[in-house]
């Protein structure tokens, strides 16, 4: 059973090899959705010209930052168990998880608050919603470990 706890300056993520494999597969499945997600790459300006200039200056750095966070998540999951994360790595994980959750939610057509009530308890227990909940749990636990 997966568990996250704090030990000194580190966050420890204890999970079974099978659980680790599931998480890596989830990352593999969702990552290709990131490129087409509006929530993952939101506009900074309403004005098209200002937006183009902002993208020119910051777009590449933002993409690199996102890729680095996803790499941090993958490397952590692929390493020795339990996963041991310093705070910079925890931040990489929580950012990567946020991007994955945004892209998955957008793909599911989730667009406004209260979306949870649109689905039955059975739907919440099965993929793809269960996947979203799993990523939420992991992100929330990691955020708690930073506090």
């Amino acid at each position: 059973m997966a568990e996250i706890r704090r030990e000194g300056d580190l966050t420890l993520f204890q999970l079974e090899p099978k659980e680790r494999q599931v998480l890596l597969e989830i990352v593999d499945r969702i990552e290709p959705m990131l490129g087409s997600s509006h929530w993952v790459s939101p506009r900074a300006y309403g004005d098209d010209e200002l937006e183009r200039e902002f993208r020119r200056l910051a777009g590449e750095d933002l993409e690199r930052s996102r890729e680095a966070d996803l790499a941090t998540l993958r490397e952590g999951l692929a390493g020795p168990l339990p996963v041991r994360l310093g705070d910079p790595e925890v931040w990489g994980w929580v950012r990567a998880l946020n991007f994955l959750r945004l892209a998955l939610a957008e793909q599911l057509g989730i667009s406004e608050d209260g979306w949870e009530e649109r689905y039955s308890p059975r739907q919440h227990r099965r993929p793809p919603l269960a996947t979203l909940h799993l990523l939420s749990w992991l992100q929330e636990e990691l955020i708690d470990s930073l506090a």
Partner: protein
Amino acid sequence: MAAVQPVVTHGTGHSTTEERDRPWQVVVWNDPVTLMSYVVVVFRRLFGYDLETATQLMLKVHVEGRAVVATEPRERAEVSVAQLHAHGLQATLARD
């Protein structure tokens, strides 16, 4: 691997000094999936807010759909928006 933080070193466009110094608002918008606890820790990390201020701003985003989280000169505001985007938050710039 540590994450690369986006760096915006110059404001967009070619504006006068007066125009550049005019404050801009950094606006964060609600989305239905980002965790409230995440928004709070990001506000604290990026803007140095205490827990109470960060929580109030997060609730304003959640309830009203948007909140101005900082008012800064344009170049600084663009950096803030880029940092918010790097954390997966929906943020825009608006003239003060």
